[in-house]
């Protein structure tokens, strides 16, 4: 009996010690960089004794899960690495802690981070000095291609004969189309191959992120720079229409069969299984793609090709402290640690995309990986979707209209863009912006 009592006492004691241990919970999407962050965070725990629990949500449910949590003032997360488009809602609805005072107190300067990432991931209103996040993961939409196929002499000469220029990194979207079409249906090593795995997903943000890569390159602007929310003639400009038509052509001519609802993972799968010559995807995936090159596959990477202008779709996230957390002090301690240049360097080394100038401006950075230069190039030309608090309401009509036109082949590109503007006007009116 005595032994049982001792055992009971010890277990109760250990439970109480455990429950008193300092810990915080960090929420992010379930993907390769999250694993790298988990690895990196071990050092934080070793230094501070603060345990960090992680909850990684698969991408298709990421926004739903996290935004519902924030809207319900949930206390599950102390830290959140939220998408760039959420910053408006995070600030306006008071989900995120404003970090200015903390940055001042701890000597964290936003000028130490790449300006494009500070603008995109941290500020609200855009470009102001109000910071609600620390740039955590720089990202942009880019392209990977089968360099091993491109290097084959017989394919090179056939392509040159047909198009009059070299098979290689495409200089613009027209060349990209030529190259994708060149591989479409082609038999290589006894297997039928296709052109490109591009974003076509309907449910969350996939096709919007894909089509805007073309629209930005054609020079599309969301609104009149001198008259905010005036979209007529900008978002549906002739250039924007041409870009959307081009994206449909790319889908029709070059996508593998059944690639009608595809985003990150589906594009990766199509590429890794050897179906396609090109894949459109986020830089976040390139460390994994590069590392997994095998069986003769050699991957090359390049930034979004220019057409009328050089531009790329912005991805990436900032790390924010959740206003409803009871452990804001511990969460801030994590941010303080994460902002350190030495930690940022390790972050890049482990496969995360640091936004810190010390890392990005280091002379060895461009050659540190095969995709580092592309990343630098892209981060200088990124453009993002609306970051308004109502961004989901703005995203959904675009998803539907673009999918209807590109995948479903219904209507015209101009009609799709007009319909989107109509819906957006309604959203901005309801939000008191118009």
């Amino acid at each position, binding site marked *: 009996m005595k032994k049982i009592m001792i055992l009971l006492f010890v277990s109760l004691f250990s439970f109480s010690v455990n429950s008193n241990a300092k810990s915080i919970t960090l929420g992010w999407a379930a993907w390769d960089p999250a694993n790298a962050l988990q690895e990196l965070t071990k050092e934080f725990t070793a230094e501070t004794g603060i345990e960090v629990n992680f909850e990684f949500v698969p991408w298709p449910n990421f926004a*739903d899960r996290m935004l519902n949590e924030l809207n319900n003032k949930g206390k599950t997360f102390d830290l959140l690495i939220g998408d760039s488009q959420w910053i408006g809602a995070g600030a306006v609805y008071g989900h995120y802690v404003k970090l200015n005072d903390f940055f001042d107190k701890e000597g964290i300067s936003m000028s130490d981070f790449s300006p494009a990432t500070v603008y995109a991931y941290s500020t609200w209103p855009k470009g102001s000095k109000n910071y609600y996040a620390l740039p955590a993961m720089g990202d942009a939409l880019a392209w990977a291609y089968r360099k091993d196929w491109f290097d084959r002499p017989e394919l090179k000469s056939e392509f040159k004969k047909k198009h009059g220029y070299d098979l290689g990194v495409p200089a613009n979207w027209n060349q990209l189309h030529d190259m994708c079409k060149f591989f479409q249906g082609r038999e290589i090593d006894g297997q039928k191959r296709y052109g490109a795995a591009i974003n076509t997903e*309907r449910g969350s943000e996939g096709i919007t992120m894909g089509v805007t890569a073309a629209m930005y390159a054609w020079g599309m602007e969301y609104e009149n720079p001198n008259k905010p929310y005036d979209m007529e003639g900008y978002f549906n400009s002739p250039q924007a229409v041409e870009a959307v038509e081009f994206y449909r052509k790319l889908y029709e001519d070059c996508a593998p069969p059944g690639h*009608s609802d595809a985003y990150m993972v589906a594009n990766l799968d199509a590429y890794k299984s050897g179906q396609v010559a090109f894949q459109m995807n986020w830089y976040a995936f390139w460390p994994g793609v590069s590392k997994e090159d095998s069986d003769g596959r050699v991957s090359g990477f390049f930034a979004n090709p220019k057409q009328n202008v050089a531009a790329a779709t912005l991805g990436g996230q900032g790390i924010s402290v959740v206003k409803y957390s009871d452990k804001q002090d511990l969460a801030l301690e994590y941010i303080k640690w994460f902002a350190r240049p030495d930690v940022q360097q390790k972050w890049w080394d482990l496969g995360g995309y640091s936004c810190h100038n010390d890392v990005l401006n280091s002379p060895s950075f461009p050659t540190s990986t095969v995709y580092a230069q592309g990343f630098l190039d892209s981060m200088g030309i990124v453009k993002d979707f609306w970051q308004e*608090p109502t961004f989901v*309401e703005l995203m959904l009509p675009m998803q539907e209209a673009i999918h*209807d036109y590109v995948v479903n082949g219904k209507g015209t590109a101009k009609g799709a863009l007009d319909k989107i503007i109509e819906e957006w006007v309604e959203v901005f009116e309801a939000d008191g912006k118009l």
Partner: protein
Amino acid sequence: MSVKKKFKGLSDKAVGWLFIGPTVLLLLAINIYPLVYAIKMSFTNFYANKIGREPQFVGLKNYIKVLNKEAIWEKMQVTASFMFWTLLLQAIIGLGLALLLNRKFKGNELLTTLIVLPMMLSPAVVGVFWTYLYNPQVGLFNYVVNFFYDLGSFDMIGSSTLAPWAIVIVDTWMWTPFTMLICLAGLRSVPNYLYEAAEVDRASKWQQFIYITLPSVLPFLLLALLFRGIENFKMFDMVVELTSGGPGSATELASINLKREAFEKWKTGYSSAFAVILFVTIFGFGNVYVKVMNKIKER
């Protein structure tokens, strides 16, 4: 005081209430209260994600907006078409299978078990694995179709013509066993002496089917279709996993659109009005249907 003594003074009615009380309370809390709250919200411009913004009364504005929105009618058409074809196919195939399984033959029980397996699966899981079956490159569906008739590569989910059929096929595959089971219960309740009397009167098999089997099984079939109709009007998970409502909005059922309006766009007032309209629609149709069903039974 013993429990027996405690309850001794209570009337039968009071004891009855004591038993059903918790259920009624639960029903009020999780069904009636949200319904009343949703009706109240439907008259406001409430956005659940706009914290601190007080909802304002807007009268019938949300209802007018829903009813005047062309896109809503498109979703209702998609839903109606989905319901029509799934119910028709499930009625025909379900009754056919029930007639088959009502006969005595070796392996009858095993076959029944195998046939009912799909309805035991989770709709979300069914949606996911049918996306693989429909894959034009590696999917079994294309292979089977091409085995019988060479159509080449076709994309069931990516084509606006085929996608509505893709969801009809999956729902029929999954839920026909339900219709079959209910019809089978109906068939087994038909007394044998009716068929014996018909044999004596030299009625053909077809006449036996038309005058005995069908009238006997019809109330059961109609009941099965009522359940399936209500379920398919609310269909969500399987279709979301299979097509996400696409391509474009070719398979965006009313319930999927409602979820997007309510929990992605957070238009709480507007989506409450939409939900009330859907509720009234299904409630109205359900009532008319039950009345018709009762009349058929009385015949």
